[in-house]
């Protein structure tokens, strides 16, 4: 009986928080709703005797990934907000049809099939040792491929986040040559800040001007 109560409570929480993610206007609230959603999914994992994955869900997702999300949203500030322009009605209708179609499809597939009782599993099912043993024996290749994927993602994140492209221009000897045209970037950033804050943006002297001054 406890099992059913926990299941339905987690279901209600998961659906409400998922709606919160897609319907709230502020991305910050969306991210907070997603943390609630991930926590309720961890409850499902515990009900399905996937102990290690429930812990990984909370630590990796609700902890690390969502903190990164919140940092980026806070970094972007007001620019992270949803653009205030009306979406056409047909886009809303198409989105509901697409979402409803996949729900209907899965429900028809699941309800037309009788699954019977679930298989009996050992007590260690879902423990870290159990998952780790599978990962390092049968799924070793997938495990290694995932590690390479994460490495590529980390390198890509650094490249995308770098203020200047950390790449050598062709024919240059220096490994980290300064960007050839800083005069282009500065006014653009100043323009963005000015449009955003209404404060007068201080003009930063270029190196040439500083030299002329001294």
């Amino acid at each position, binding site marked *: 009986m406890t*099992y*059913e109560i926990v*299941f339905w409570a987690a*279901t209600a929480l998961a*659906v409400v928080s*998922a709606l919160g*993610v*897609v319907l709230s206007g502020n*991305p910050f609230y*969306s*991210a907070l709703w*997603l943390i609630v*959603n991930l926590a309720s999914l961890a409850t*499902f*994992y515990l*009900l399905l*005797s996937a102990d290690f*994955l429930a812990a*990984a869900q909370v630590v990796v*997702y609700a902890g690390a*990934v969502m903190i*990164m*999300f919140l940092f*980026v949203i806070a*970094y*972007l500030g007001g*620019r992270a907000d*949803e*653009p205030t322009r009306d*979406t056409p009605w047909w886009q809303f209708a198409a*989105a509901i049809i*697409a*979402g*409803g179609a*996949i*729900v209907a*499809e*899965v*429900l028809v597939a*699941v*309800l037309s099939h009788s*699954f019977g009782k*679930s298989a009996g599993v050992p007590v260690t099912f*879902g423990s870290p040792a159990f*998952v780790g043993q*599978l990962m390092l024996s049968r*799924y070793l290749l*997938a*495990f290694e491929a*995932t590690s390479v*994927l*994460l490495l590529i*993602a980390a390198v*890509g*994140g650094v*490249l*995308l986040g770098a203020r200047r492209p950390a790449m050598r221009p062709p024919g240059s000897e220096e490994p980290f040559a300064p960007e050839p045209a800083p005069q282009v970037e500065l006014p*653009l*950033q100043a323009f963005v800040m000015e449009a*955003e804050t209404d404060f007068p943006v201080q003009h930063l002297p270029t190196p040439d001007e500083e030299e002329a001054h001294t």
Partner: protein
Amino acid sequence: MQVGVEYFVGVSAVLFGIGLFGVFERRSPLILLLSVELMLNSSNLALIAFARQLGNGSGQVFALIVMGVAASEVVIGLGLVVAIARRKAELDVDTLTSLKH
């Protein structure tokens, strides 16, 4: 009433549908990324539900790998969002139609 695997898969389908709705309807790239996270997690729930139903641990390993893929996707997606925000004032997927700046 016995809660079987079909209930978990039903919840997973509903969450996936909500995530799909979010991807189609919202225009902020950040909320699009969050909706994609929602969809990836709902697929994880289905994988783990079937792993328990069949008594086979493979589904749990797949779910763990999906978590790795989702983490990479978030890194690249957020990196792109920050890079776009540095160059353009408006973060709107309807107006972001070119890869060059």
